[in-house]
């Protein structure tokens, strides 16, 4: 008799649970559904046979007349204003913080590398692994995240994201001044007025277009837009590494191997 009572009880509980489940709405999360196809590792395939010198820098030359290479964007088409032209005449490789001091390269130049996207409610974590850096940033979605005070600046800025239809759009502002902030091989600076807008568009399950719009009225006459395509490289995390840049060694490379000597008294 007690056994029968237990069975009846369990049946009642099971029926009640089944009834509750039927009355619950289907589990949907629009934010998750939208971001899901973007998750994983993406490869821009911007490379060259030996992994170096991915392209020219629009005919620009360096301190000893060398042809600059390995720029991350079509810098020959950048709408430079006269201040930017003056900067390029003034700048030299030996002061480059990315080369001499292990400073991380900036957005948008870093976007030409492998990209890993993970998501949490209200934010994305985007990783940009490359030697000798591994840059990780948080993209605050749909108005979440910190509200910086006026004048609060960050090397990689503050990134805010949203969906525009099915496009993932990220706007980044609040950058510090950066001597290599537009391109670290052209050595064109960016100002605190820099704004980078990334628009990620899925072409299909395995291909994604990234349209980048770069604004910086300090150095550019108008916004500059360029794009490239990523291919999905899987869902695993980025290849991990020991990302400890040795500034002393980096400086010695310049000291012993770079022949440019634009400012001999300041070597």
């Amino acid at each position, binding site marked *: 008799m007690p056994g029968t009572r237990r069975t009846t009880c369990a049946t009642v509980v099971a029926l009640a649970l089944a009834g509750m489940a039927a009355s619950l709405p289907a589990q949907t999360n629009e934010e998750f559904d939208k971001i899901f196809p973007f998750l994983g590792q993406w*490869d*821009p*395939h*911007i*490379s060259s046979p*030996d*992994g*170096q*010198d*991915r392209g020219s820098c629009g005919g620009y030359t*360096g301190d*000893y007349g*060398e042809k*600059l*290479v*390995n720029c*991350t964007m079509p810098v020959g088409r950048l709408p430079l204003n006269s201040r930017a032209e003056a900067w390029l005449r003034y700048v030299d*490789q030996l002061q480059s913080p*990315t*080369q001499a001091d*292990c400073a991380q*390269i900036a957005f948008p*130049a*870093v976007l*030409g*590398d*492998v990209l890993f996207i993970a998501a949490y409610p209200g934010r994305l974590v985007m990783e940009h692994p*490359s*030697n*000798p*850096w591994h840059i990780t940033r948080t993209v605050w979605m749909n108005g979440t995240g910190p509200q910086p005070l006026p004048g609060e600046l960050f090397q990689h800025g503050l990134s805010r994201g949203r969906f525009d239809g099915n496009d993932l759009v990220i706007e980044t502002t609040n950058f510090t001044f950066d001597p290599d902030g537009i391109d670290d*091989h052209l050595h064109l600076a960016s100002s605190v007025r820099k704004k980078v807008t990334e628009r990620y568009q899925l072409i299909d399950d395995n291909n994604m277009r990234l349209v980048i719009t770069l604004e910086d009225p300090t150095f550019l006459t108008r916004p500059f837009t360029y794009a490239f395509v990523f291919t999905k*490289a899987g869902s695993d995390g980025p*290849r991990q*590494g*020991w*990302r*400890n*840049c*040795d500034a002393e*060694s*980096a400086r*010695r*490379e*310049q000291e*012993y*191997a*770079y*022949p440019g000597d634009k400012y001999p008294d300041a070597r």
Partner: protein
Amino acid sequence: MKLRFLAALVVISAGLVLPARAHHSFNTFFDMSRTIEIEGVVTSFRLVSPHSEMLVDVPDAGGKAVTWRITARTGATNAKREGWKPEDFIGKQVKVEGNPTRRVGGTAMAAGVVTFVDGGRVVCLGGCPGGPPVE
């Protein structure tokens, strides 16, 4: 057959190497169109990024040691993956083949291939077949 399998594996592995944003352009610092060889004793080998760094004392015509700075064409992580250990290099007589600095009279190079004079062991520091990816 085994050789063919290994060759295929190398090709596939090369294809999996992800492009790396280069710290600087090697060709700007080193003359990649020229190859030179030095021979001397390794005095230091640091597995660091952006590029591992080896010092080699090379005797000049008068027998005086001149220090050459060898920049590996890959960083610390790949060096570890390759199993390089500084103690395996330091104190050893080696030949180093690589691309010379563009600085006139400079004693530096990007390497390249290291051959141990005793034993003939060969290590690629990047930029040669079978070596770690260039960074």
